[in-house]
């Protein structure tokens, strides 16, 4: 049997060019979903193949890569993707946010503020913010073209009518560059403010749905809300039990079957740094 040999970062150069063209268009039209011909990857669709393809297309041998899932470097899928790039590209990797030039993430934005030298690559399951209000792609593309976002506001209003507040805690829609409503991927809404005016380039890849979109550095990203129901982020009553941080997103850990819980930082790198600084 002939097992094929793989190019640097798995994808062939032709595929990388195709993805880079989509990325350039995405950067030129912030928040606009650019269709691209996503490839099969040696990992299942829905497990980060979009992010992996974006990272593969922008990765150079000089880069230092960090991969996180749920904020942590040690989660299984993050380990798997990091190993994939070590194996196929031989790049340096790190767990320290400041050292990374490219950070691929699923469901979080690091607590450490990002810089102009960094690129954040998001893995996106459903790129279309209007999908659950209108399942058909033909319709949603038209709605974006016409800037017809009324249904989204109606949905948020109905949340308030039913639950007394906007009942969206992650995947919270936002307006990019005052033009496109976009889906920030299922990051908690806690992370939405970090998207706004961020010095780093933010790229979003959805493999199964074959879409790429981007937020260029220093672009305005406004989470949707109402004047009388302004956007807000959750707060925890207690600090992280490991590092004492009061400003970070906390994971709930079940410690026994008697209702015992502990709250710790989801961003493991941040937690480690806070703890050693204390």
């Amino acid at each position: 049997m002939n097992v094929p040999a793989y190019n640097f970062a798995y994808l062939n150069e032709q595929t990388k060019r195709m993805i880079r063209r989509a990325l350039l268009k995405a950067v030129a039209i912030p928040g606009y979903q650019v269709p691209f011909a996503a490839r099969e990857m040696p990992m299942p669709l829905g497990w980060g193949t979009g992010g992996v393809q974006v990272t593969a297309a922008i990765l150079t041998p000089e880069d230092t890569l960090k991969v996180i899932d749920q904020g942590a470097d040690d989660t299984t899928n993050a380990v798997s993707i990091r190993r994939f790039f070590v194996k196929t590209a031989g790049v340096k990797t790190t767990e320290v946010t400041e050292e990374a030039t490219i950070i691929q993430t699923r469901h979080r934005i690091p607590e450490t503020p990002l810089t102009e030298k960094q690129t954040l690559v998001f893995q996106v399951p459903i790129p279309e913010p209007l999908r659950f209000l209108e399942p058909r792609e033909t319709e949603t593309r038209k709605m974006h073209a016409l800037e017809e976002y009324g249904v989204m506001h109606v949905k948020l209003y109905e949340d308030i009518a039913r639950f007394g507040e906007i009942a969206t805690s992650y995947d919270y829609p936002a307006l990019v560059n005052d033009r496109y409503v976009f889906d920030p991927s299922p990051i908690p809404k806690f992370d939405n403010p970090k998207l706004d005016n961020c010095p780093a380039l933010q790229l979003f890849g959805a493999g199964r749905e074959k879409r790429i979109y981007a937020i260029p550095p220093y672009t305005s990203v406004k989470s949707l809300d109402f004047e009388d129901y302004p956007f807000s982020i959750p707060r925890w009553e207690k600090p992280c039990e490991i590092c004492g941080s009061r400003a970070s997103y906390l994971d709930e850990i079940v410690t026994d079957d008697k209702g015992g819980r502990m709250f710790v930082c989801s961003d493991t790198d941040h937690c480690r740094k806070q703890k050693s600084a204390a």
Partner: protein
Amino acid sequence: MYVAVKGGEKAIDAAHRLLSEGRRGDPSVPEITTEQISEQLALAVDRVMNEGSLYDRGLASLAVKQARGDLTEAIFLVRAARTTLARFGYTEPANTSAMLIRRRVSAAFKDIPGGQILGPTFDYTHRLLDAGFDRTSPSLVPETPSSEIPKVLAMLGQEGLIEQPQASGTAPGDVTQEPASFPMPRDQRLQTLARGDEGFLLSLAYSTQRGFGRTHPFAGEIRLGEVEIEFTPVELGFPVVIGEVTLTECEMINQFIGSADVPPQFTRGYGLGFGHCERKVMSMALVDRSLRADELGEERVAPAQDEEFVISHCDNVQATGFVEHLKLPHYVDFQSELILLRKLRAEANVMQEAAE
């Protein structure tokens, strides 16, 4: 020249001889044994046991071999065998809380009592074809099945965060013994889904994730392991263990319901299957939840919420039978159609000529 198809018996015999030859393949290649199938194609065997609705590795392996690896065909073989078996009664409900766990993951919490146990899984492997894997002898991983581990959803239940399953108060139905009718109680729906085609349920489950009947799922807990099966013989009057089965169970946590009377709670979707079958039980749990639309006061807008549509079409033995029956002769009906069509065309021609 039209040749009438006659001599069917001879033709069938000849065709089946060709099938036998084809099944064996090149005689210079060693013949595969059912033991090899059971051990090395274990997940194919699990699927056949599931959808064949019969826990018997030996028969399922034989079916896979006999069907040349066509699993739908193998499932059909097992179903056909199952229906001939004598019934002694019903076992006690399988207690999956007492499962000897080999794999157990929760996507809802980072850590849980009993821990996350990855176990034997394709997850996080890179799907790179590797011609060398079958030549390296696998290093032996000592497997230590853990003792009883509490269920993740039960922990949420203590806080009232998730709905408590309600007992129906009546004995479970048996879809292999009673004809289906709609609306169908959940127990019968789950039985039907457990026998349902993995691919069909997978696609339906997928459609709910893409907005066609959204259910907002989290994989609360997926567990794989061995469960003892108990049976109460009439002569004894108390349950005795009659064996052990491998089961995969999925408990989905879905987004909440609430009303003026009841504070918001997460809802549940449930999947259970023989052997190691995560894709199947996850799909089943998503479809189970979306089929509860009426019960939970949700608007039915998508195929996966339509009980009659899902239940009537999820059985692959039924589906393959009816689709493939189109290969059977339909000469007579087709002939009637031909006659009708020719007549209509002739009439149309007459009208046209008259008009000209």
